[in-house]
């Protein structure tokens, strides 16, 4: 838009300036020419009449002179004033010659040269000319002496004004179409510039939206075409790098999934026999028994870690499916705790049966509850409390809010931002008794898969609180 305005302004200014300059030059020329003509005629008139002039003049002589000078140009509407000392005569009776300024009289008298002045009168502009009459006889001191007679002339510049008006009209008539054409041309030029610029803007926006395959069509070889070329090269380079990154990421993901998968088979064999080891450890010598128990314990941990890794790699690969089923959420939470023998350890504030029903993936909900509760028992301190409530939202699905609160030391400030990170362990909790280090990330992934939110915070009176909000979809 700014560009269009600028282009149009430039066109207007150029056109108008050209018109104005043309007009001024023409007007000056015209007026100059008219003036020169008048002055020449006037001087010629005086020169032709002056020799037959009585000197010193009587009033009647002055009168005759004025009339005759005026008559040299009958058509031109001349008004003549002749002065000699205190006497004066005008070609028209009782003409006050108001246009004649005292300054002009003074300069005619003193400078002994032709003086003229353009003045504005009530009837338009007029030219006032003053000529001092000199003696032509050469017996007197040369150059000729001023005779003391001054002849003044007033001519209305009507015709010149007419010319000027005509000129203005002509300039206007020429300028307006020129102006229109110039503006149109400017707009066209602006469009020529703007179209590529707009295309560039659109393309940039598309790139930003992730359509890295966007390219500009390049026409011609001007700067804009160069810019488009550069844009295309940049986009291609960007697309290439992103594709490379994605390939690397996919490789890394596949690798993690493959590794977990490959680990599973040996672990399956080991996990199958841990019970045998545990049973027989009692009958072995102490060292061997310790070694056997270690192997058994660590095998179970490793199996859980690999399980969690598989789960995470499924989330990463976008292969995690939601199997929604309408359940009673409070009942579901109660079962999750009961099946792990926690109903005595964790106090609950749950809604009555059938008060909160919604479509969730029961297996994933179980993972969410078990991980948060287990986390509170491991890292927090008793008492641990689990509360569930329903949060009604105007204009949106209501949400089930599950809070798990512990009474431990809380989450340190430096850990808080990383609490859902994978394998993130703060220095204070580097104990190996905790889970795989993936529990909270898996929990968060499960919540997000439901379209819910999960947050961690510290309670004002100590202890941490994890809050999960799950949208309560209903069977239609």
């Amino acid at each position, binding site marked *: 838009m700014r560009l269009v305005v600028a282009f149009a302004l430039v066109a207007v200014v150029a056109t108008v300036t050209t018109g104005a300059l043309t007009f001024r030059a023409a007007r000056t020329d015209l007026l100059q020419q008219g003036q020169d003509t008048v002055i020449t005629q006037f001087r010629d008139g005086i020169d032709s009449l002056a020799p037959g002039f009585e000197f010193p003049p009587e009033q009647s002589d002055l009168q005759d002179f004025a009339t005759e000078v005026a008559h040299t140009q009958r058509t031109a509407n001349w008004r003549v004033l002749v002065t000699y000392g205190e006497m004066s005569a005008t070609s028209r009776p009782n003409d006050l010659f108001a246009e004649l300024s005292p300054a002009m009289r003074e300069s005619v008298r003193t400078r002994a040269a032709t003086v003229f002045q353009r003045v504005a009168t009530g009837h338009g502009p007029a030219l006032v000319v003053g000529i001092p009459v000199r003696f032509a006889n050469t017996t007197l001191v040369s150059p000729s002496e001023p005779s003391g007679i001054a002849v003044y002339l007033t001519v209305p510049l009507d015709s010149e004004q007419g010319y000027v008006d005509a000129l203005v009209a002509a300039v206007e008539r020429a300028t307006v179409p020129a102006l229109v054409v110039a503006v149109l041309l400017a707009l066209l030029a602006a469009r020529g510039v703007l179209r590529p610029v707009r295309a560039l803007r659109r393309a940039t926006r598309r790139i930003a939206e992730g359509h890295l395959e966007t390219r500009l069509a390049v026409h011609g070889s001007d700067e804009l075409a160069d810019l488009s070329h550069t844009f295309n090269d940049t986009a291609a380079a960007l697309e290439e790098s992103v594709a490379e990154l994605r390939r690397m990421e996919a490789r890394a993901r596949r690798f993690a999934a493959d590794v977990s*998968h490959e680990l*599973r*088979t*040996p*672990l*399956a*064999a*080991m*996990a*199958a*026999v*841990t*019970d*045998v080891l545990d*049973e027989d450890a009692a009958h072995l010598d102490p060292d061997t028994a310790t070694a056997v128990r270690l192997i058994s314990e660590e095998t*179970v941990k490793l*199996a859980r870690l*690999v*399980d969690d890794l*598989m*789960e995470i790699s*499924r989330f990463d690969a976008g*292969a995690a*499916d939601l*199997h929604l*089923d*309408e*359940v009673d959420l409070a009942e*579901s939470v109660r*079962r*999750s705790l009961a*099946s792990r023998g926690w109903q005595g350890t964790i106090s609950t504030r749950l809604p009555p049966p059938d008060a909160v*029903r919604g479509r969730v*993936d*029961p*297996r*994933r*909900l*179980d993972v969410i509850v078990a991980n948060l509760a287990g986390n509170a028992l491991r890292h927090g301190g008793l008492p641990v409390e689990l509360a569930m409530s329903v949060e009604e939202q105007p204009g949106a699905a209501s949400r089930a809010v599950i809070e798990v609160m512990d009474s431990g030391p809380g989450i340190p400030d430096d850990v808080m931002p990383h609490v859902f990170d994978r394998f993130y362990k703060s220095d204070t909790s580097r104990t190996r008794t905790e889970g795989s280090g993936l529990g909270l990330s898996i929990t968060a992934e499960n919540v997000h898969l439901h379209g819910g939110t999960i947050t961690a915070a510290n309670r004002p009176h100590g202890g941490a609180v994890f809050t999960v909000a799950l949208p309560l979809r209903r*069977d239609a």
Partner: protein
Amino acid sequence: MPRLLLIEDDRAVREGVSLALRRQGHDVAAVATGEDGMERLRSFRPDVVVLDLMLPGMTGLDVCRRIRADNQVPIIMATARGDDIDIVVGLEAGADDYVVKPVQARVLDARIRAVLRRVGGPVGADGMPQTETHGDLSIDRAGLTVALEGVPVPLAPSELRLLLLLSASPGRVFSRQQLLEAVWEHSYHGDSRLVDACVKRLRTKLGEPPGQPRFIQTVRGFGYQFRRSTDPARPASR
């Protein structure tokens, strides 16, 4: 001593699981391929089959379908992938239950015993007639046989137990969770896919055209019920 056939291609897993299950008091025969498994099925006549889904050559799914074609022996799938789709496909191919590897021997043992319990013992309230008819479906609770229009319908243990449970209280709605606990004895909850897959297989065997259940109704958001013979057939809600 329950006779158990283990079909598992990985030697270490095969040996480990066999060893552990023998210690748990099972009579174990272990083979490495599906083809060998089909062979041993006839000669060994196991009470239960533990089947790895990821087999070279003939896949676990194929083995499952081949066994089910003429044999109602309980099948427990062991899946290493943990891919949800595998489990569903496996269950629909006729497996009664599944475990995800790696699995501890005592967990597998518990599942095996649970699936074996499904084979025996009457289900339902006492004092019910031993044989009952629901339209052209007759159920013999003592002999544990089911016939449709007089023709015996072979049912796998889970299917039979599910049908006995539902038909014992016609009109009563059972939640998936209740069915899971009663039929599969799963103490953990949430795997309603077992129930859904089993209901699907049962409907097929009872000759119900898809989308028009005659005996087992889906009650949306709650679970399943056995239709009273007096109830009008409802259009399927799924």
